[in-house]
């Protein structure tokens, strides 16, 4: 099923919670350097799929392959090192820390995060920290927040917190970003700014998988849409192909 330019393949993934079957042999592939949207009604299995791909949940059966390699059973932190990072629907930042320190946490090469290096190799730690600060500031510049690098995150507005989270994900240098409802909680102006940044990600060699309920966001962003229903991919295609199918509208909204 996987094609040459597929970066991620989900193959017959099944997941139950207690007696409830949430994912039923879910199968799809994501093309590299594209934005794919995962849509579906509440309970369709979108977040569970996200959690399985990013290691926060383990599939009961099936395979998930990233660049052809099986990533089932890997921990979330391991998967970030392999190149897959995610955001959460409710933005999760370290509120007591500054914007810059939050983004620095996204940097992967941090010898100073080990006790022995921090105590015994101060020069190595300092050198890498300087490089990481430079990279973190570049990430903040990409989202337009370099001016507020020293502000405490919990004092920022929600749209700015979302941007900090995006900067964190950029700082990880991961090739694939999974964004869980990136537009939720944002006003129209903030959505427009955020979408502009996300749309530019494929040009930076990033692949994006988005869960979203806001159809105008999906229309704006997605190169490809996957419609989930009852734990499986019910339909796939371009945005217009999906929204023009009346049956899907009924499944999604429960109305004509």
């Amino acid at each position, binding site marked *: 099923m996987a094609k040459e330019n597929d970066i991620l393949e989900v193959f017959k993934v099944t997941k139950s919670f207690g007696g409830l079957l949430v994912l039923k042999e879910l199968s799809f592939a994501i093309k590299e350097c594209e934005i794919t949207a995962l849509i579906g009604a509440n309970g369709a299995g979108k977040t569970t799929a996200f959690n399985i791909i*990013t290691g*926060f949940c383990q599939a009961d059966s099936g395979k998930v392959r990233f660049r052809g390699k099986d990533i089932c059973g890997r*921990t*979330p*932190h391991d998967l*970030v*090192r392999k190149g897959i*990072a*995610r*955001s*959460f629907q409710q933005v*999760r*930042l*370290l*509120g*007591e*820390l500054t914007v810059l*320190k939050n983004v*620095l*946490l*996204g940097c*992967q090469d*941090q010898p*100073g*995060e*080990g*006790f022995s290096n*921090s*105590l015994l190799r*101060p020069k190595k*730690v300092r050198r890498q*920290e300087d490089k990481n600060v430079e990279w973190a500031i570049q990430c903040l510049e990409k989202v337009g927040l370099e001016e507020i690098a020293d502000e405490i995150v919990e004092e920022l507005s929600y749209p700015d917190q979302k941007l900090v989270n995006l900067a*964190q994900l950029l700082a*990880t240098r991961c090739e694939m970003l999974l964004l869980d409802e990136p537009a939720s909680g944002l006003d129209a102006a903030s959505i427009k700014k955020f979408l502009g940044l996300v749309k530019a990600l494929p040009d930076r060699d990033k692949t994006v998988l988005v869960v979203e309920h806001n159809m105008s966001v999906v229309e704006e962003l997605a190169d490809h849409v996957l419609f989930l229903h009852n734990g499986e991919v019910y339909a796939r295609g371009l945005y217009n192909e999906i929204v023009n199918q009346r049956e899907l509208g009924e499944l999604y909204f429960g109305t004509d």
Partner: protein
Amino acid sequence: MEYLLSFAVLAGIYSILALSLNILVGEIGIISVAQGAIFGIGAYTSALLVLHLHLPFLLALAAGIVVTGLFSAVVAIPSLRVKGDYFIVAAFGVQFVIHDIFLNLVDVTRGAGGIRHIPRASVFGLKFDSNFSYLCLTLFFVLLVISVYWRIKVTPVGRLLRAIRSDEVAVQALGKNVYKSKVMTTVASGSLAAIAGSLYAHYLTYIDPSVFTIHDSIFILAMIIVGGMGSITGSIMGAVILLGLPEILRFLAIPDAIAGPGRQIVYGILLILFMRFRTKGLFGKSF
């Protein structure tokens, strides 16, 4: 004067203990009620190595650090795999089991009778047998532990620990091995407590299990709650205040039968009051 010097030595030793626990509680947010037992492992290891193998003090102290660090790892590896507050339950278990071992492994620890005639510390022939000289030795180690703690605070590892305390799921999602960080912090905390244990044993020249009980673990926890979680100054002031309080009460001529339990009650009330009304302690940040 000797009384004040003696108080200062003990304040220094308990400051090291408070600092060691604050790395765990104040920085990464893992509550432990086993620091009394860990303190004891350091003390017994150092004392036994000097008495039986005639190791020099510094080598015995280093061995105490290694043994206590390894022990902390053995406890942390399984108990930190579970989510939630189960580590506290494990810590209770460790505290009681270790205390029981101190009491019952009579052939090694001499049980309730304790180990006597522990030599005073000496370094390269220089014997620290006066209160003043021992205070100098203790202050050296207090400064050493402060610099270790400060270094942790200002480097990326401190940032990581505080982030884990704040939201470990978010930190995992950024590619950090939270479990490994928790285990290593527990090892660091235990290793530093061993320094206090060794200093204690070689100062008093006598140790017995009654100093390494759950009450002592709670006493050390109270020091950082009162002084301030995540605060170097708070750790030291908490130790000074809580050690100083009973000394002040001595001057009020309260009978021993009341003073002992009364002290426990006061510590308990202090803990509750600070957790309720001043979670940051006197010098710390909010927990």
